[in-house]
């Protein structure tokens, strides 16, 4: 009498157990979550592609599951640094170079030498920048080089020199069009640093020497700042337009040239369907330019080192690298991956970006990487004085050098 009413319940329980064993949801629930924070996850378009890419790792794993954490670029550093400083934070983080060095110095990153064997991978040149004190603290996630993009409807051919470039920009400035665009405001300090650094490196200067001594007042840097001022005063740029605005103007055919990274080039090529886009090396005396170098690191607070390491090793497999490079567009990845014929047919100029890798230098003052935010603040303020108040470049850069030595390096 009592046994029969229980039968349906037993059958239901058995069905649930059987369903559970075969259900992907429950299987995933048994996996250990490994969080991976990157601003790219929050980007429209690329974020979805990156999630799909991460899902392939998850599908290949029985033990770990990467959980993407999307944090907008504008608040990424303060959010993640605050979490890491408080003893928590994501297990894996995609940093930019300034944050990478700051976190390394603060001992917030795990050394990866026991996770990644150098001999097992044919790393591209920028990998060397991710070793600090002989130890590896990151793996390249994205390298984006800088070159000059120009609209052949406004600028007929690649300028052969800087003076030719200025003349071409002046020639293209008419009928509501501008010959060129760059950043020149304090509100875009971070982006302006990259634009300015391209001039400095292109004119043969560096922010510091091999010993880590600031060289902000060196002749080459002064020459570069004078060139920046020359373009600013040439009435060829849409003054006050921020980067997103002038990039949109470029895509609409209203700006002749910009010096920008491969990621932007891919976006502009996609956005400007009718744009007559061409790419050439930046019009400076040397081919040195800066780059965006973004490593993936393991947070020292992680409880999931094994899972994070498994992801990094998977990320470096040829298939994962190839797919990641396609997601990045005109940027490259940790290991040299050949462009597919489809990519080359779609964007023939992509090889100009790829060939720039050998001339790419990180944007931070060598040996002073952890002091970069303060140095940037001082230098940009002085350059704005040059642009707006007419301070001579030599005076402004001498003041910047002095301020860096006294206020930042406490000498």
């Amino acid at each position: 009498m009592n046994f029969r009413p229980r039968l349906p319940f037993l059958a239901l329980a058995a069905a649930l157990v059987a369903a559970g064993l075969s259900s992907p949801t429950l299987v995933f629930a048994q996996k250990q979550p490994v969080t991976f924070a990157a601003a790219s996850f929050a980007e429209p378009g690329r974020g979805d592609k990156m999630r799909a890419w991460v899902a392939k790792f998850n599908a290949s794993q029985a033990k770990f599951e990467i959980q993407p954490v999307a944090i907008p670029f504008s608040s990424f550093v303060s959010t993640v640094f605050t979490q890491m400083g408080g003893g928590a934070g994501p297990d894996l983080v995609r940093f930019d170079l300034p944050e990478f060095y700051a976190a390394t110095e603060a001992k917030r990153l795990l050394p990866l030498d026991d996770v990644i064997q150098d001999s097992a991978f044919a790393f591209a040149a920028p990998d060397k920048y991710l070793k600090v004190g002989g130890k590896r603290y990151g793996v390249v996630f994205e390298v984006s080089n800088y070159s000059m993009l120009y609209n052949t409807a406004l600028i007929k051919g690649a300028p052969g020199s800087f003076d030719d470039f200025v003349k071409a920009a002046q020639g293209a400035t008419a009928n509501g069009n501008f010959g060129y665009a760059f950043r020149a405001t304090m509100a875009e300090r971070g982006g302006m640093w990259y634009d300015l650094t391209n001039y400095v490196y292109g004119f043969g200067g560096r922010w510091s020497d091999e010993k880590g001594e600031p060289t902000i007042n060196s002749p080459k840097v002064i020459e570069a700042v004078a060139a920046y001022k020359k373009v600013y005063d040439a009435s060829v740029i849409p003054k006050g337009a921020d980067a997103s605005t002038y990039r949109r103007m470029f895509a609409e055919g209203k700006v002749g040239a910009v010096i920008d990274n491969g990621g932007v080039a891919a976006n502009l090529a996609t956005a400007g369907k009718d744009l007559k886009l061409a790419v050439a090396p930046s019009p400076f005396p040397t081919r040195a330019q800066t780059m965006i170098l973004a490593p993936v690191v393991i947070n020292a607070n992680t409880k999931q080192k094994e899972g994070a390491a498994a992801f990094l090793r998977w990320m470096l497999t040829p298939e994962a690298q190839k797919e990641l490079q396609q997601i990045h567009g005109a940027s490259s990845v940790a290991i040299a991956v050949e462009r597919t014929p489809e990519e080359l047919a779609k964007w023939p100029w992509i090889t100009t970006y790829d060939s720039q890798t050998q001339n790419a230098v990180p944007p931070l003052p060598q040996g002073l990487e952890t002091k970069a935010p303060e140095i940037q603040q001082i230098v940009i303020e002085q350059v704005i004085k040059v642009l707006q108040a007419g301070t001579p470049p030599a005076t402004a850069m001498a003041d910047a050098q002095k301020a860096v030595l006294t206020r930042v390096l406490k000498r």
Partner: protein
Amino acid sequence: MPARLEGHPRTPYLLVLPAVLYLLAFQILPLAQEFWLSFTATSLLSASQNDWIGLENYRELLHDADFRKTVLVTLVYTAVCVVAAIGLGLSSALLLDGPFRGRGFARAAVTIPWAAPPVAVALVSIWIYNAQYGIFGRALRALGIEAGQLNWLDSVDYALPAVLLTTVWQIFPFASVVLLAALQGVPHEQREAAIIDGADRLSVFKAVVWPTIQPSVMLLALFSTIWSLRRFDLIWLLTQGGPVGATNTLVIDVYRRAFVNQQLGQGAAVGMVGLAIALVVTIVYFRYTARAARARGEA
């Protein structure tokens, strides 16, 4: 039961306990920790590793010409915001207090800037001030004013006036609404009596209106001062404190030192200077109101 609760000597303490706990957890303790942090060299990335350096952060601030400029910019920004917001608020409130057609609509319309989110206001303002496309520069150029050629937000000389214009435009409606409410409390009989006695409009304002609305004006001045001292969003979105520190106020400086330069200790020291200024303003206000109350024989 309610009767026992009301009569119980501990009831008042029980009633204020939640507020005290809230203040303790979310105001006093963080403030105490910030005070302590200001005496340490603490990085954002190593918040738990603090090196005690005594007054070094404050000594650096004292010798930092840029910081002195930051304090000056903060005081100028605050003073102009308070005076302009209350001045415009009072003027508009006096206009809106009088009878005219469409008064209800005008009263509603004047609150629009206050209701607009600062992010939207900042984004619109950036375009308005744009030298090439903005209506502001175009209007100045049409009037033959040379400064219309400039991008005000990027100009060392004009960035602070531009930020102030935007700020005052956004905050004055609050003063207007508060003072309009205060004006409703001015006794009509006294106004009429003063007018019958031959007083002109200015005399009526000084003798009848001002004494009634003065406490509201003082309270507005206190709130406006504190809000202006701590205003971050609008300034950050418009200029990030630049160019060359022209709009760098104390709160912008706190953010930059703590979260851009990752120096929590330095940021905390700047924060304490800001707190000290706010405390001085508050103490002055309470002393003034106490003196005014004594003068009226209330205390």
